[in-house]
């Protein structure tokens, strides 16, 4: 490690004693500065976005947003040391991807070891395979139940049942739910794959519809139709999209 380079670190754990312990261990090291302590995933996303720390020591089991979901929401996630009390699958995933982790309760020596390892790895700047990790840890459902959208440093949790439709907008998707539009950086095909195919249909290259929201379908031009949603929104349906819809309805 280069002399006197201080690692800006954030601690994320929903249990106060756990944060207390990390603070105690970390303040004994002069190469670590605790930039923030977060008691939940939302605060963690905010801190990661605003403070851009070098390292996050991240609990996995937290309410609303787990550790993996936090990282997925941050554009350039820092180096990470995961902490968990007990999770066979997560540990397997960490081993598999050679990710640093701590099993609670852990000693200061064990933490130091992980920190030294991370410091070495930071130089290589190898990004974490977050999605693969989450999947291997069994924390990524095959079918999406809620969509997480980051809005500045805030996070919106949108249950999929609340989604009316989704439109493609360049590199983003616009998720329309309860009269609001949420922009998320994701590809249509990727999102389509994760949505329940019995509820959501990609009716056009640029739109996915929640089947329950369709009021009626009208002929628009030769070979193309228009879906009228219950709120009056009109969406174009391609021929392939219509074929898919016919099978569903």
């Amino acid at each position, binding site marked *: 490690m280069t002399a006197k380079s201080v690692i800006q670190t954030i601690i994320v754990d*929903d*249990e106060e*004693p756990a944060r*207390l*312990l990390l603070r105690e261990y970390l303040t004994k090291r002069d190469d670590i500065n605790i930039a923030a302590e977060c008691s939940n995933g939302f605060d963690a996303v905010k801190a990661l976005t605003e403070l851009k720390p070098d390292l996050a020591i991240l609990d996995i089991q937290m*309410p*609303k947003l787990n550790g993996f979901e936090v990282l997925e929401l941050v554009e350039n996630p820092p180096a990470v040391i995961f902490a968990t009390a007990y999770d066979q699958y997560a540990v397997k995933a960490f081993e598999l991807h050679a990710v640093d982790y701590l*099993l*609670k*309760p852990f000693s200061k020596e064990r933490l130091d070891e992980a920190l030294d390892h991370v410091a070495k790895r930071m130089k290589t700047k190898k990004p974490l395979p977050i999605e693969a990790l989450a999947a291997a840890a069994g924390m990524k459902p095959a079918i999406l139940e809620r969509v997480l959208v980051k809005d500045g440093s805030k996070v919106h949790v949108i249950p999929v049942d609340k989604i009316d439709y989704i439109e493609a907008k360049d590199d983003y998707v616009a998720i329309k739910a309860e009269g609001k539009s949420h922009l998320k950086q994701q590809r249509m095909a990727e999102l389509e794959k994760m949505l329940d195919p019995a509820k959501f249909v990609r009716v056009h290259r640029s739109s996915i519809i929640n089947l329950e929201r369709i009021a009626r379908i009208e002929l628009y031009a030769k070979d193309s139709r228009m879906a009228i949603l219950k709120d009056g929104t009109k969406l174009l349906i391609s021929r392939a999209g219509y074929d898919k819809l016919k099978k569903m309805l």
Partner: protein
Amino acid sequence: MFVAAACIAAGIELFIGYGWVQLIDSIQFAPPISPLYEFWIAGIFGVLILVFLLVAAMHYVLIAYEQSNKTERQTFELKLLAQDAELRALRAQIDPHFLFNSLNSISALTTSDPAKARTMVILLAEFFRNSLDLGTKNRISLTEELSLIDKFLTIEQVRFGSRLQVQQDIEQKTLECRIPPLLLQPLIENAVRHGISQLLEGGTITLRTQLHNDRLNITVKNPFDPDYVPKKGTGLGVKNVRSRIQTLYGNEGRIDIEKKDNIFTVVFSFPVKDSDT
């Protein structure tokens, strides 16, 4: 009753037999031996009664045998369920999250608040010891179960801080009620694990007990996050309590579960008789 049934059955048999005799008589080549005829009938009647009584006795023995088998099976089933509860209790003690997170809390407290760390160690030990003891018993008093629950909640409160609030509304006269051990504890554990710990701001677990018409009514309430998707294998706690109440109390036991306005409520009740005390 058996004798009466035997007489009737013998009568019917005799009647059929008489028909046969008539039939044989009508096709026989020798004349009937009339003087001995009535004698024969009485003899046959007596023999038939004896045969029937023998059959009935055998039948009775079979029924009794089956009955004893059934009771044996029921006792066995109850024993299994009790063992299951015990096992669950054992597993609850080594619920990895509860255990390791508690140990982590203790580790944190050793420098900042050594006295509290010691209290936690003792609470944890007592919780383990109590659930081991209670699991081996048939019935315990509600007081005993509540004391176990208090230990559990005190430990969890160190972990969750102000996120975990508890409100107890215990009717004084319910305290001495005899209840199956570790019936309530798994429900409280669920309320923390799947309710409170999944909420950012936490919430209050409400526990209420009432005695009404010789029935003990217990209510456990906790807020939950509607977006929370429990992992597989959960919900076992409620299922186990339901099947235990069903086996132990049959139609007299009740358990109702309600999910409304983001509040999860379990209400169950069962009779508490003098024989249980």
